[in-house]
């Protein structure tokens, strides 16, 4: 179930740190703890079938929301997250989980855990031929430079969904846009 690689989609640090944070939340806010535990359970269930089942953009976005909510629980004021257009994409199918691993890889590659200030924006927009999924991460005092190699994450789309990936870097921000044609 676990992969020891730090850039793995299913990172044990994420799981155990989330469990630890939820355990204390039980004493601070039981309702919230219950909600977060459900989110973690949903996420793990989804991950256990990762790569094996077809999914939809809507489902992917729902799990990304859960994933980011757990990251926010731990990192608190160190990460600001904005999500737009997460309600769309129900009719848009994917051969397997693609977007969640991309978000996870971004957070790990840019090591948000070692940075004092992170601002993450996720925007999902319908376009003529399909969908535009964009992520923008701003970090302070400085961003870990370099593009990210998403070839492992995108390979399952080859020959099934037409896609185009663009990445853009500034000293303090990283932006990626993934254009997906409808399946």
């Amino acid at each position, binding site marked *: 179930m676990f992969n020891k690689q730090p850039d793995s989609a299913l990172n*044990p640090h994420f799981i155990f*740190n989330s469990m630890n944070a939820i355990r204390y939340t039980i004493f601070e806010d039981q309702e919230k703890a219950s909600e977060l535990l459900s989110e973690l359970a949903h996420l793990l269930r989804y991950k256990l079938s990762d790569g094996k089942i077809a999914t939809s953009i809507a489902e992917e976005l729902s799990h990304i929301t859960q994933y980011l909510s757990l990251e926010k629980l*731990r990192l608190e004021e160190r990460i600001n997250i904005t999500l737009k257009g997460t309600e769309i994409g129900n009719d848009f199918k994917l051969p397997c989980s693609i977007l969640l691993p991309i978000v996870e890889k971004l957070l790990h590659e840019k090591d948000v855990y070692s940075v004092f200030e992170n601002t993450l924006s996720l925007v999902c927009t319908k376009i003529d031929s399909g969908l535009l999924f964009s992520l923008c991460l701003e970090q302070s005092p400085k961003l870990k430079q370099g593009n990210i190699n998403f070839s492992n994450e995108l390979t399952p789309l080859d020959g099934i969904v037409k896609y185009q990936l663009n990445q853009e870097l500034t000293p303090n921000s990283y932006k990626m846009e993934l254009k997906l044609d409808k399946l």
Partner: protein
Amino acid sequence: MTTIKVIIVDDERLARNELKRLLSKHTNIEIIDEAKNADEAAIKIKEHTPDAIFLDIHMPGSTGLELAESLGDDVNIIFCTAYDQFAVDAFSLNAMDYLVKPVNPQRLAESLIKLETRLEQAKKQTGLPDDHKLMVKYGETMRIIPLSDIIRFESIGNHAAIYTPHGKAFLHSSLNKIEAKLDTNHYFRASRSDIIRLDAIESMEQAISYGLEAKLTNGQTIEISRRQATKLKQLLEFTQL
């Protein structure tokens, strides 16, 4: 029971609180401060000189491993992290223990016993030997005496009076500082104002204050506070085993 002073170092507030909650069940542990990154921790460790730190590894700025390396053997380190990928590195830095989150309360209790034992051993090892020589001024005369000649240290303001076969003299040091240098096998803190040599106790009687009154070989009678009397009884029972 000796109070153990600790500092918690973790970038996540919830993780710090969770550890505080778990440690609150151990009455001999006093959390003197907390830090959310290694740089902040380094300042606080220097300021408070804790007995131990609970240290996360992955934090903004310097990592816990880097902090541990800079501290050397000055403080006991219990690493506390989510996954064991750093365990080998941590132990190569002479970590006292390595706990994984969520921390198992039983495992934490074991770690604290280990810490307590290590601190006790360190205290015994650092205690000055009986034949340690001291230069002491009796009136206008200076004498070199072995530490074992001192049968009582009495706190007088910022100084301490010492009682020896040659009479009374003074040291320019507080009782707390003196206590830190003494071997607990030979000297015992009787109260806030007195440290006495164990083999200088001739007899003991129950005091009205529920403590004890110890009669020393020089004829003096010293009161041992109620709390310390309990500790002394435990200490001597243990010694007999």
